[in-house]
């Protein structure tokens, strides 16, 4: 049994850690890997649900504090210090990097007081980035969402299902998709995702 001193090791444990080995896998195509896979970690994620009839006021508060209005359905917006992703009616994910533990949750709690309910999800979700020319083809093997650029342009964000797992998909940039899912499913999902990406060749970065 490994001895772990309580005083050390306060770093967050990255789910999927054992699975993330950098390198190229699957078909070695001349034009390079079809997709690049990476994990955004550590990440701060907070669920924001507007209080009853507080939607407009909440949006105004977002504007005042972060310079962005609440995103429309199926959309995400990038603000100064955080990104807001629509995930259901009057419900959003606030996502931000480089924050100390619970800092984003605490900050939003004070800034959005009286307007919304908040729950810290930073540890509950894993965000996998799938990028590259074959990214859409890989996602099409799992989700019924139409990822064609005409239907799912940059800055889209929707909940869907892939491989029987609930996944929130956002498109932060051209040919780039972020898949956010419950951490408990992340190994299963990773195994499925990499199998689907094999034919295009994939690189773990």
């Amino acid at each position: 049994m490994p001895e772990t001193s309580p005083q050390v090791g306060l770093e967050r444990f990255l789910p999927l850690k054992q699975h993330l080995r950098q390198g190229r896998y699957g078909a070695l195509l001349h034009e390079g890997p079809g997709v690049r896979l990476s994990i955004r970690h550590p990440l701060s994620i907070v669920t924001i649900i507007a209080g009853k009839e507080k939607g407009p006021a909440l949006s105004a508060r977002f504007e005042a504090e972060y310079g962005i209005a609440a995103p429309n359905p199926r959309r995400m917006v990038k603000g100064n210090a955080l990104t807001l992703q629509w995930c259901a009616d009057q419900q959003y994910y606030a996502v931000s990097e480089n924050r100390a533990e619970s800092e984003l949750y605490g900050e939003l709690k004070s800034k959005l007081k009286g307007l919304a309910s908040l729950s810290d999800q930073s540890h509950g979700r894993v965000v996998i980035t799938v990028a590259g020319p074959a990214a859409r083809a890989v996602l099409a093997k799992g989700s019924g969402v139409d990822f064609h650029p005409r239907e799912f342009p940059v800055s889209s964000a929707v909940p869907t299902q892939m491989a029987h797992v609930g996944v929130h998909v956002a498109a932060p940039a051209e040919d780039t998709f972020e898949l956010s899912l419950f951490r408990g499913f992340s190994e299963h999902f990773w195994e499925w995702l990499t199998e689907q990406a094999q034919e295009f060749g994939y690189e773990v970065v």
Partner: protein
Amino acid sequence: MSGYRLERGGLIKRERRLGFTFDGKPYHGCEGDTLASALIANGVKLVARSFKYHRPRGILTASSAEPNALVELREGGRKEANTRMTMVELYDGLVARSQNRWPSLYFDIGALNQLAAPIFVAGFYYKTFMWPPAFWEKFYEPIIRKAAGLGRATHEPDPDRYEKAYAHCDVLVIGGGPTGLMAALTAGRSGARVVLADEGPMFGGSLLSEIEEIDATNGLEWAQEVLGELASLPEVTLKPRTTIFGWYDDNVFGAIERVADHKIAPQPYEPRQRYWRIHAKRAILATGAEERPLVFGGNDKPGVMLASAVRSYVNRYAVAPGRTGVVFTNNDSGYRTARDLRAKGVRVAAVFDSRKNAAVPDAGGVEVMMGALITGVDGGLGVKSVSFDRGRGEEHIDCDFVAMSGGFNPNVQLACQRGAKPLWNEALQAFVPPDNGSALVAAGAAKGSMLVSECLREGAQKGAQAANDTGFHCKAAALPLTRDDSYSITPLWWVKESTSKAFVDFQNDVTAKDIPLTAREGYRHIELTKRYTTLGMATDGGRTSNINGVGILAEATGRTIAEVGTTTYRPYYTPVSFGAFAGPFKGLHFQPVRKTPLHEWAQEQGAVFVETGLWMRSSWFPRPGEMDWLETVIREVKATRGGAGLCDVSTLGKIDVQGPDAAEFLNRVYCNGWNTLEIGKARYGLMLREDGIVFDDGTTSRLSEHHFFMTTTTANAARVMSHLEFCHQVLWPELDVQYVSVTEQWAQMAIAGPNARACLQKICTDIVLNDQSFPYLAAKELTILGNVPARLFRISFSGEHAYELSVPADYGNMAARALMHAGAEFGITPYGVEALSVMRIEKGHVAGGELNGTTTAVDLGLGRMMSTKKDYIGRMMAQREGLIRPDREVVVGVRPVSKSDRLLAGAHIVARGDKPSMETDQGYVSSVAFSPMLDMWVGLALCKRGRERHGEVVQLFDGLRDIHIEVELCDPVHFDKENKRLYA
């Protein structure tokens, strides 16, 4: 001519010779061949035996409708039974075997069935195997089962991968013949997203097999030009080898793409097949038409082929079906076959046209006999001659193949899969697709348009309409010029003058005579006729037989064909393999695997995991030297009750419930009250279903005025969340409440036992834990180990002085290790769900075995939790007569009278002296455990009037395992009845 391969022509690559075997014998074919065309080239005519009579059969079609030429393809784990050789693209090293014959294709003992043919008539299995009744199970059924089916499936695992995928398009074009090409081109030029799918490896459809002239060039070259342009359009996707097999709600289509079926094995990383769901805004049915056989004596003999298939073999594959043929037709298209054969140098002895008064088309110099019928075919394993009747008595003519045409059936299947029936067209003598509105429209031969000019015009028209409907603009373009043939038909459903068996359904061996017989026996409705005769029920879906069957039934019952109508069309258009349905979700990935945030810690501790729903939970932690799980579990319970234990309970459902109306919301979903719960306190909650039965339980804590932290059982987590959403959105939208699952955010562990507090204190640096600062049912947010946010609850499932500690999931392993480290001096021991279960049974706490969807709160001994001061889900219905009956089965403890007896869950309770039966049954044992504290098996049971019967000795009856023992009914709390340990 070498063998039956023609010297010139065809779309085969002669220089690419491919070796293959059929029934172990080696042959050669060319690239571009199908297995069928390659066998024809080698002069092989007999390829199969029929299902019921084991009659010799040959190749009937050159299409996916093939009923006869089915083989076992490949070997080992890749073996596929009932594969249509007309659809198998030849590859080097292909191995195929004939099926449903013994000992060989040429000498098949099963053919003796033909001698018994009189007993094998329609409905024979309803009549023949009735008496004596005792024979059914031991004799008749095993024989029928053995005879059932054609090929044999493999028992080895399939080594290949299968995928699933979704596609979306503005316009889906189904079928890549002249109509489909024109439709795709027209829609594609507008910029619409177009998917063009065809079941074959090459696009072109009939243009691959027919001699056509389009725009002063041949049809094939025209198709190549169109394909070139389609390939250059970025929003057009070409999907060869892709069969659209089903049409579903919302214009969703199911499709199977045979990615690597044409290879000996898939390339690395390549799936064998891909199962597509295609969401199409508009779809065009351009599936063409399938030729009908004629029904005459001996029409199933090897060498009798569809006339269009003969054209396909000579034109596309450059093989002759024989040396001398005859054509038998009731329409103009048969003449085309005669012309094409002559043009390729194959002798045609005669064209028999059943029509008496028709304008005679050009037969290319072949003798034409009008009003002539073939009445029989001679030859055992292949055609040798035919007998015919042109009004001069029986005549004979020598030939070794027959090309027959009974007209054409538009391939309407997909258009009818959502309930609309096809419409009878008298002029065409065929059913045409119903009007389905604009979502799916038919064009070309699929709509009954038999001329190439019509196909191109309709393809362009429908393609433009579909693209315009979806917001694109199609410019008018000139249509290609074509040279058309004419088409007319006079029906001939059955040559009644036939001298031998005339087949309607080749695969299920249904003969023409079976159909009037069925009608005479009362099964006049086509759906009944189908089931009684098995007409159209084989793997070919009756594509060559159904309409002939309808025609014969109409004649036999004096109705019109429109009155008889068709049977119901359902997916699948052609067979789809099970591997494709399963896709990648097999084995370990059959369902998602869900791991807790303490998984790595539990692994370090040597946990044995068990699947609980999707979760992998640690069930016990064996130590070296322990003989079995029970020994381990006993140690874990004793260590926990004797010192301290640590258990991963992260799988509990966790829901943040927030907002000004959160307390009121809980009041309505739980049967007990929540208004009075203080901040910083936890409470056990019980939820009922609308019908008054217990739904779920768990502890819910109040973290602040408007913030509650709800826990649910592992099993019901998702259901409770859906229930909350339903209640809020539908029943009480006026409540200002928000809730979200935080199950995965928190790693949760139970710390139980007399030393639990001491262990915890060492990591809880900012609170002094005692009964004042942290009494039973306290619930607080705090930090551990200096700065890790945590939630601590003093709650107990084990009956011990116990806590549950939540930390953000990424800290779970670390916190558990820290607790193990801190608790080492107190002998802290990890325990799994088995020990957890033992301790809850010792304490009489109800769980899944008792909360089983049939019990009320009163049944569980929790009746006092049902508030009388408020309304809640399930309150009214829980008062129903049957739910408050005094003799209901209620929770009671059970202990064996003889201390060494083992209890087993599921055993039934019967009063002493009663004989076990449905009438004397008084309940059953719901949970059992070996109690280390009492050194005996104890259990919980649901027993009639159980609470009044403590102390009564009853029988336990386990009929499955044949166990009879005596047990005493007792208080469900087996251990520490006074709850001293909880507060210790």
